[in-house]
């Protein structure tokens, strides 16, 4: 199968698995059909979910958008944007709570 020889298929598989992991982190036992937990502030879970989202975003930019083969300035813009986003979101979360 040509699809199995294509590295993008594995990128997609990684993205799907990390989506399921972050869903499990965010929704807890209810993923498995258990009772939905009452959502409460949770720094560790939140940072984990944000980190997973940032890694997924990096994979989309790098592999699907092919920035990994792009010029240095584009790679730099994309990576600094991602770092800025992650730091801003976590800092604002932490600052208020």
């Amino acid at each position, binding site marked *: 199968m040509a699809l199995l020889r294509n590295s993008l298929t594995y990128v997609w598989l990684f993205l*799907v698995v990390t989506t399921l992991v972050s869903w499990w982190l965010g929704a807890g036992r209810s993923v498995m059909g258990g009772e939905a937990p009452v959502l409460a502030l949770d720094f560790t879970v939140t940072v984990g979910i944000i980190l997973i989202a940032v890694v997924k975003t990096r994979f989309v930019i790098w592999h699907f958008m092919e920035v990994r083969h792009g010029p240095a300035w584009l790679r730099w813009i994309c990576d600094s944007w991602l770092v800025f986003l992650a730091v801003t979101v976590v800092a604002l979360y932490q600052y208020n709570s």
Partner: protein
Amino acid sequence: MIPQETAEAMLNGSEAARGQEIQFRSRYPGQSAMWFFVIGDLWIFTCYFACYMFDRGQNPEAFLRGQQTLSQGIGAFNTILLLTSSLLVAFCVQAVRAGAIAQAKRWLLLGGGCGVAFLLIKAAEWYIKISAGLPAGADDFFVYYFMFTGLHFLHVSLGLVILTLVFRELKTVKPPQTAFVESGATYWHMVDLLWIIIFALLYLMR
């Protein structure tokens, strides 16, 4: 024109072939105007995300009450739908580079189909939310919920218009302009990555 040998290897998607091809082009995919737009859009969304995080921090319990009523399962399903759509559109770009236009059209149709399914599910989600009545005391959360999902809905819709133009290019122009197809794909992947962040911030974080 890409040499025939490279093109054939690219269709198989092997890593070495991708390296050859990039050496051949040695630049970013698509047109610079699209990248300018995409990067600008990402920064605008970053400002919205910062506003959301700030307001959420002012009253996190109210935001969590709103979040509690969302279906994380639907959010996760929609995320996987868009990821799959991105993959199919990336396959389309590879096929165009390899000159396999008929195959490229099939990938594009499947990718666009996932995009349409995303919109239908999103609309159903809104309908269920609104007809069930929004919970009291979570107004701020729902202002952001409808703003983010609404803006994103518009982005997906524009993305589908762009994919339609790409399809027309593949159908009518021989050979189609690769840069045009790549630009459309770049926009579509941006729509995907914005949803990844929206899903994390609106549906999942505590």
